[in-house]
């Protein structure tokens, strides 16, 4: 089991390193991640939502549905814990 997991770990790691070779350089301000969608948020956050903290405006407004899902995730976890650890009335 230990060797198997070690092998699978190393395969996964090697694959990821192979994949990272073609990535844009670290901290490159002109990488696609920084130029395609995100400038829109930075430019329009104040105009659209009057919120200087762009993270908040993206979190709760532009991608509000994600955050709804996230609250639901937390709610699910809470209900799950209650379902699992609820005191049983009768054995």
């Amino acid at each position, binding site marked *: 089991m230990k060797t198997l997991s070690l092998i699978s770990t190393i395969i996964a790691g090697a694959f990821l390193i192979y994949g990272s070779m073609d990535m844009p350089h670290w901290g490159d301000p002109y990488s696609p991640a920084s130029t395609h969608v995100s400038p829109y948020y930075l430019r329009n956050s104040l105009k659209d939502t009057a919120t200087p903290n762009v993270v908040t405006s993206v979190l709760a407004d532009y991608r509000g*549905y994600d955050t709804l899902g996230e609250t639901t995730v937390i709610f699910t976890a809470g209900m799950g814990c209650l379902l699992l650890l609820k005191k*049983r*009335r009768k054995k």
Partner: protein
Amino acid sequence: MLGETSILIVIIPLISAALTPLVGLAREGLSYLCTITALTLSTLASVHTLFRVLTEGTVHYGLGGWPPPFGIELVVDPLNGMMLVLVSAVGLIVAVYSYRGVEQELTGRMVYFYTLYLLQVTGFLGILITGDLFNLYVFLEIASLAGYALIAVGEDGAPMACFRYIVMGTVGACFYLLGVGYIYISTGSLNMADVHLLMKGLYDSKVIATAIAFILTGLAIKMALFPLHVWLPDAYTKAPSAASALIAPLMTKISIYVMIRILFSVFGISLFVELFPLNRIMVWAGFAAICGGAVMALAQTDFKRMLCYILVAEVGYMIGGLGLANAIAIRGAILHILNDAVMTAGLFTVAGIIMHRMKSHRLADFEGLFQKMPFTMSAFVVCALSMIGVPPTCGFFSKWYLIHGAILARQWPFVAALLGSSLINGILFFRVIEVGYVFQFSTPAHTHAGEGMNRMEEAPLSMLIPTVGIAVAIILIGFYNQAIVKHIIDFALPKL
């Protein structure tokens, strides 16, 4: 814009899930009613959306009023329209069915159960309807978390099985997230359609290759593709019967749907067929899954566990069908998603009824069941025939398409595996039918046991009607499969 029903499909179960604990604190039984109402409304909404999609074409819905690459977008096309109807309908039927089982197995915890049930369905529907890669991850996690909790409350040994599922499932979800990260860093977008457009120039990038590998591995864990299926049999065998009847048919199918969506709508068909030998790998993975699942199923003495291994084999059908990469095989695979969900739901509801009456799901306890519960067992026979692939039932048609496609693609081992698996399914189910039908006459002990033993012990109506309904649906889908294929699936096929 209340006329826009696509958003209501997800939102109604979600809001009801939040309402259920409040309602349930007042009276426990109300949570059941809340669940049924919400799922009925959601089913109606999804049917309406499907009809709209079929008449008007793909529906787009930008949440929060933002244009798609910036906000999150819901997309309903014929493929996920069909899946939405399927999931919400199965969810509704299983919800109606679940009441007695929950009352018996989870006394005093009904409110939490139904809350999680609704959240589970919400997660499924959210996965299906979204057009955003990260949003898919969020809803995948909702579905997974609800699934963990629902499975872990099962019979003895369920927590350990569930823990294994949690570990594997988290690895799967994280691999998916990692793949999305690799896509994001090379394209800068998360919207599926947008990523598809941006992907065109990036086909030779190593980043994209890694992203594909990790997303597919993650989804393969979630759908229990053969070597990664180890969590599935334990988890689904030990889950409460209502939970397994909901999760077992749908979770694997939804992962396969996500795989179709990622491969065809995000990465694009040319990447899939031309640049990588991905379709070969998938055919062989399907082959391995069918063989492995069928062989393991033969070795089981437990009914539910046997069904779980059959489920593993069925995943192989669909993955192999996708990997064959011709229109007929993919049509067969998509039709098989629909058929398999319905058939598996039928089988697991039958298992739940037997669990409810006999307090066991070992094969040995099936003796004389045909006399005790004739309706249940006839529903079971319909499901079994469909699993084997006998013509009037729906299982036949998808298998026909799959075999036809495999022959066209000249993948003879896969054809052999499909046929062999049908044969093994036949053996498996006839063994069950034999135990249930033949033994009651052959063993004299039972005739002596007299009236008490052979009395009718038919399941309560609230469990029986959904089960028989599923059996009827199997036959109806079989009769109308041409219509389904012509009006829905042919629009869902990728342009090959």
